[in-house]
């Protein structure tokens, strides 16, 4: 028995608790809705329907001026029907006001309802309304926000208020904003209980809430309260593969283009960036590689290399005494060398000189002749060294150190000089200097050959030098480059074999005739 009693008590207490909780919750809901309606609805009494069957009306009174609840009467009349009364109850609100509330559990919709509130017989409030046009629903429940796998999107879904026949008449507002910002956006949804939010920032937390209202065609009402906000993060930003691939392709194309341009202009760029320092290495064989840039030494060691010009010679070298010898007049009867343009007289004179020279030559020993030449040198300046490079057309003389008696060759030489004389005559007009040189040369050596602007090689067979002879050569160049090969004195045997040839502009010495030529030092 006691056990049963206890069980019954327990059940009753549980029921009581549940009911109290629901009542308290209902009261809280009512207070919330009442406060919202008090703000929005101007008419009195404020009425709203929460569902298909219930209906609540209330009005507010100040505590000071109000009476007891019995003083008030709430009367409502449907069209074409008799009026009815609604029992009132009083609620005390937080801000010192009193609410008188009428609640109906059965209603008729789509028909006009007239409401009258009397206080002690006096009409204080009057209102006509249609109940289906004053809905105030609870906010949507179970608002869920989730990622639907797309960038910058969120899927919002909720459960609509459980009202039969009214699902397709409901209108929703979804408010979303980043959690830390105050600017919110609102989307309106009709007759659907989910929405996809687009255009959201990736990787941010969004706060989403929903409220509901009837659409106003068949039913109407007020906006419900906002649902509790739901916080969700959007997907973090990731690289759009299309953008990444496009940027890679564009950069590749740009690189290829720039490489192509660089390669096509590489010679120009190289010249600009690494300008070629002029290197005279090619002109001086071995100057840098062997002698390390020491020009003096290099000059001393080489015989002029392959590509010598008088440019490098004349500033360095002074003519040797031998060279001056060529200008001495051996015979006093012979006219002194003069720079003059000659005519036929000169020709003759040359011929005479030539024969005179020959006579002289035969008479004098070679050494004595050399000494005389030397003495003459000291007395007379050597014009050759002062001559400008371009104007110098010095004759060159090759002295033959040949001990052979050149007598038998003299005739040959004499004969051979004849064409030279002709050459001299033709070239005399070009330069007077050379003429004088030629003249001196004729005088000085019988076996010597003269050259004018051009350079000749003189096989000097007939000089019978004693001791060691020198073969030397005066470089005469009027700008024409000559190619000389070094000669050694030991190769005097070959002198006789050299054949003379005359070349006006070039001096090409065949290799096998080289022995006669040597450069003086």
């Amino acid at each position: 028995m006691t056990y049963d009693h206890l069980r019954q008590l327990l059940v009753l207490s549980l029921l009581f608790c549940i009911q109290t909780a629901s009542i308290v919750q209902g009261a809280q809901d009512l207070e919330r809705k009442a406060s919202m309606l008090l703000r929005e609805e101007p008419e009195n009494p404020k009425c709203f329907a929460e569902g298909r069957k219930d209906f609540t009306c209330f009005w507010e009174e100040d505590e000071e001026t109000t009476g007891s609840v019995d003083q008030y009467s709430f009367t409502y009349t449907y069209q074409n029907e008799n009026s009815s009364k609604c029992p009132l109850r009083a609620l005390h609100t937080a801000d010192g006001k009193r609410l008188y509330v009428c609640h109906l559990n059965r209603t008729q919709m789509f028909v006009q309802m007239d409401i009258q509130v009397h206080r002690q017989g006096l009409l204080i409030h009057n209102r006509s309304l249609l109940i289906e046009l004053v809905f105030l629903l609870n906010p949507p429940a179970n608002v869920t926000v989730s990622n639907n796998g797309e960038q910058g999107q969120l899927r919002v879904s909720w459960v609509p208020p459980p009202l039969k026949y009214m699902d397709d008449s409901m209108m929703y507002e979804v408010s979303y904003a980043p959690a830390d910002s105050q600017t919110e956006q609102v989307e309106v949804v009709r007759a659907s209980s989910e929405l996809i939010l687009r255009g959201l920032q990736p990787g941010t937390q969004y706060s989403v809430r929903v409220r509901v209202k009837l659409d106003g065609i068949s039913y109407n009402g007020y906006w419900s309260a906002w649902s509790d906000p739901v916080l969700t993060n959007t997907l973090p930003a990731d690289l759009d593969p299309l953008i990444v691939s496009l940027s890679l392709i564009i950069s590749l194309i740009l690189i290829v283009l720039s490489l192509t341009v660089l390669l096509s202009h590489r010679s120009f760029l190289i010249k600009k960036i690494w300008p070629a320092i002029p290197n005279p290495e090619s002109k001086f064989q071995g100057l840098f590689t062997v002698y390390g840039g020491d020009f003096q030494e290099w000059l001393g060691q080489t015989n002029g290399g392959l590509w010598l010009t008088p440019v490098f010679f004349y500033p360095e070298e002074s003519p040797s005494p031998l060279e001056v010898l060529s200008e001495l007049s051996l015979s006093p009867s012979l006219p002194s060398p003069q720079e003059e343009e000659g005519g036929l007289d000169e020709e003759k004179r040359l011929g005479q000189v030539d024969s005179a020279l020959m006579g002289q030559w035969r008479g004098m020993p070679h050494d004595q002749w050399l000494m005389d030449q030397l003495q003459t040198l000291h007395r007379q300046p050597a014009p050759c060294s002062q001559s400008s490079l371009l104007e110098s057309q010095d004759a060159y003389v090759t002295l033959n150190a040949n001990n052979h008696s050149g007598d038998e060759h003299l005739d040959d030489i004499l004969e051979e000089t004849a064409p030279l004389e002709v050459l001299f005559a033709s070239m005399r007009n070009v330069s007077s200097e050379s003429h004088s040189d030629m003249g001196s040369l004729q005088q000085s050596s019988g076996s010597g050959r003269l050259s004018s602007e051009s350079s000749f090689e003189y096989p000097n067979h007939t000089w019978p030098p004693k001791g060691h002879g020198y073969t030397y050569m005066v470089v005469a160049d009027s700008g024409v480059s000559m190619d000389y090969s070094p000669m050694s004195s030991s190769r005097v045997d070959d002198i006789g074999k050299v054949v003379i040839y005359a070349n006006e502009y070039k001096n090409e010495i065949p290799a096998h005739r080289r022995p006669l030529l040597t450069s003086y030092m």
Partner: protein
Amino acid sequence: MNTVHQEPMLDGGLFALLLIVLEWTRPGLPSPLRPICDLRVLNHFIKEARDAESAMRSCREGCSLSESVTVPQTRVDFDIWEKKNALDQAQEVQSGLWLLHQALSSLRASVTNTALHSHLDNSIRNLLSINAVLRSLNIQEYTPPASVVAGDETWQVSSATDLLQVYVNFLRGKVRLLLLDAQACHQDVS
């Protein structure tokens, strides 16, 4: 003798069979109306009815009913409504629409304000469209009784605004509920 009697019966039976077969396979028979389940049609009618009501409310002269008309009751108590079966609901809606049609025609005749004429013509057209919609949902048509009987579901109005208000409320209430509950629509959806 027997054979003579049987022959016409056989012929009649064969003929009946032939008719049945032909009826069944009749070519060119128009297919039954597709059920119009989209309530946006009704929403459109409701909006136009509301426009007519507001126009009537702002009318000052030339807009009165010459005589009182019978209109259906528009009130809906959901408990009661849900207890009714589909047939009763359909009957209620169809009779109400018929009554409204009569009333609006009478109003149209008595209103002299030309601005309201278009509204009323529109409303009458919409009523006929609603009839077509209900026909598409296989809801039987209403055959009016020989004499008008004032029942529970009717009442008299003498004001044009009241009439139009009734019209609007009827569309929003009972007509809509009937369309929502129509079996034809539920069969398609499910």
